[in-house]
């Protein structure tokens, strides 16, 4: 006799070729018999060569925890071809068990996760797939842009204006904040070195050239990757989850022309303007720091104007246009390739930002090499 039996929660008796399991008492409290115990007690009573009769005393209190244990017990009996008679149980409990046992749907075993080698191989082919899908995406995008040039595009002007407003004016605040700080950082960085040479006034050169050629475009692009690229991925990913992209396709519209082109164009048109704005604000930040080192505002401005030529400004703007396109491509591609679950939309957004920043840094390095070879 086990402990639980002595608590009078259940009794097992054998009579003839019938094993009787009698349940009693309060089965709602946590410390009751587990299904393993029930099965063992019945087996000890010689269940294998008998049939099982389930009954309950009138004082039985139960919830679905008991039902789940009986369910295990009955399934155990079924697997061992032991017949079960539950007519001694309360009718609601019988009904519940009946429901649980009614449907036998075997989904079959799930496919096993691949081994390490297979995973390595899959990883390798994944890299190739990524490259192919990026090239395909860019190719389709170019075709869509050609259609736009030929005036046969499905792109709506209204969408373009909407996205310009989203990624332009609304981004000014954050761009201003980051740029003024970057300008100040550049100034401090130079000031420490230049003061040793007594050449504080050249802080203006450092800030102006640094902002216009490098930090202005790059920092603005990083902000826009986090702000707009992520938003594109989340929008398109949610549209994918809502079957909106399917709707666009079956309505005879091209997702590329209808969804991607306005987003890309908006970003490409707005980015250079944001960069000009960022440069100006960055210079102001630098000037504030410089004024603390006895370089007054007019001196700073004159020095900055002398150091920066038109070529410097153009190189920065060319960068910004390319950066904008890269951010839009990373964001839209991640969104369109997204799965249909909420987790997948989250992954798409992460992917958009990570890819965009990788693209940005690689492209920036390439630009700098190119510019130094070209001597601009």
């Amino acid at each position: 006799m086990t402990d639980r039996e002595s608590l009078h929660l259940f009794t097992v008796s054998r009579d003839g070729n019938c094993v009787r399991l009698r349940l009693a008492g309060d089965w709602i409290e946590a410390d009751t018999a587990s299904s393993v115990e029930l099965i063992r007690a019945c087996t000890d009573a010689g269940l294998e060569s008998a049939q099982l009769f389930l009954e309950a005393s009138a004082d039985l209190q139960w919830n679905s925890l008991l039902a789940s244990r009986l369910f295990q017990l009955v399934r155990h009996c079924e697997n061992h071809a032991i017949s079960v008679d539950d007519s001694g149980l309360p009718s609601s409990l019988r009904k519940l068990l009946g429901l649980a046992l009614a449907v036998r749907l075997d989904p079959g075993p799930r496919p096993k996760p691949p081994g390490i080698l297979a995973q390595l191989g899959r990883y390798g082919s994944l890299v190739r797939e990524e490259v192919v899908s990026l090239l395909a995406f860019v190719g389709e995008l170019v075709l869509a842009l050609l259609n736009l040039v030929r005036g046969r595009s499905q792109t709506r002007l209204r969408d373009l204006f909407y996205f310009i407003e989203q990624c332009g004016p609304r981004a000014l605040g954050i761009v201003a904040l980051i740029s003024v700080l970057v300008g100040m950082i550049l100034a401090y960085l130079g000031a420490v070195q230049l003061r040793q040479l007594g050449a504080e006034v050249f802080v203006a050169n450092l800030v102006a050239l640094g902002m216009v050629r490098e930090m202005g475009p790059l920092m603005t692009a990083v902000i826009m990757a986090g702000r707009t690229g992520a938003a594109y991925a989340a929008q398109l990913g949610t549209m994918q989850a809502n079957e909106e992209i399917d709707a666009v396709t079956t309505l005879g519209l091209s997702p590329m022309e209808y969804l991607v082109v306005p987003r890309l164009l908006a970003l490409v048109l707005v980015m250079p303007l944001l960069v000009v704005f960022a440069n100006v604000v960055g210079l102001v930040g630098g000037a504030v720091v410089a004024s603390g080192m006895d370089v007054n505002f007019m001196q700073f401005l004159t020095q900055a104007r002398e150091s920066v030529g038109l070529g410097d400004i153009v190189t920065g703007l060319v960068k910004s246009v390319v950066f904008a396109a890269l951010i839009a491509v990373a964001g839209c591609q991640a969104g369109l390739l997204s799965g249909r679950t909420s987790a997948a939309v989250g992954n798409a957004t992460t992917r958009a930002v990570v890819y965009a920043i990788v693209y940005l840094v690689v492209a920036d390095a390439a630009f700098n090499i190119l510019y130094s070879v070209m001597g601009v």
Partner: protein
Amino acid sequence: MRYGARLVQENLNFQVNRGDIFVIMGGSGCGKSTLLKHMIGLSEPAAGEVLVSGENFFRAAPEQQVAMRRNWGITYQRGGLFSDLTLAENVAVPLQQYSALGKAEMAELIAFKLALVGLHGFEDYYPGEISGGMQKRAALARAIALDPELLFFDEPSAGLDPLSSRRLDELIVAISESLGGTVVIVTHELDSIFGIATNAVFLDAETRTQLDQGPPDWLLNHSSHAVVRQFLSRGRRDSRQASGELQPSGDRA
């Protein structure tokens, strides 16, 4: 109930009795689901109050709100399953939150709940890998994980074929009977309304209030509102003009 300046429904006054299978019915866009959101404490009514066992959810202390929610099981229109968790993990969420069960016991309980809704063996599947009807049933399994006293359904049969939706209805009845709970269902499916409801309230989109309440069979022939009779008779003009009949015996607050 209102969304901003837009009034959805007003002057609602009805009671759901213990053990009822209560249907909130009405045409599309009349505010059925909004009413349900107010009943389950997701949105606060603009005026008036919702009492559950005499308790106003929005006036209750936070611990009490948790205790109230523990006794509620809710399935949403689109299931509301967590898509990054397997079915077993979905059902486990309320169990881990509110019960002190051991691992093995919890696994048994989860297997049982999934078997109840006909999904035995699907423990390790993700919601995205099973059909819409299965998702609804899995959501039901999660809703009944804790043997709730109160079960809420928002459009259980939306998007299901007639056979599956009838099976789901039968499942709801069987589970509520055996667990002894009360069920509140939002639906416009007449089959469900006549098949399982013991009591109902009709919301009207035009007058923005409840037109009538009572058992649906009784409403079909005896409602004093032609709109309600017409709704329940699938839009057929009924010949009986029951305008002289009495309303159900007073509003039960």
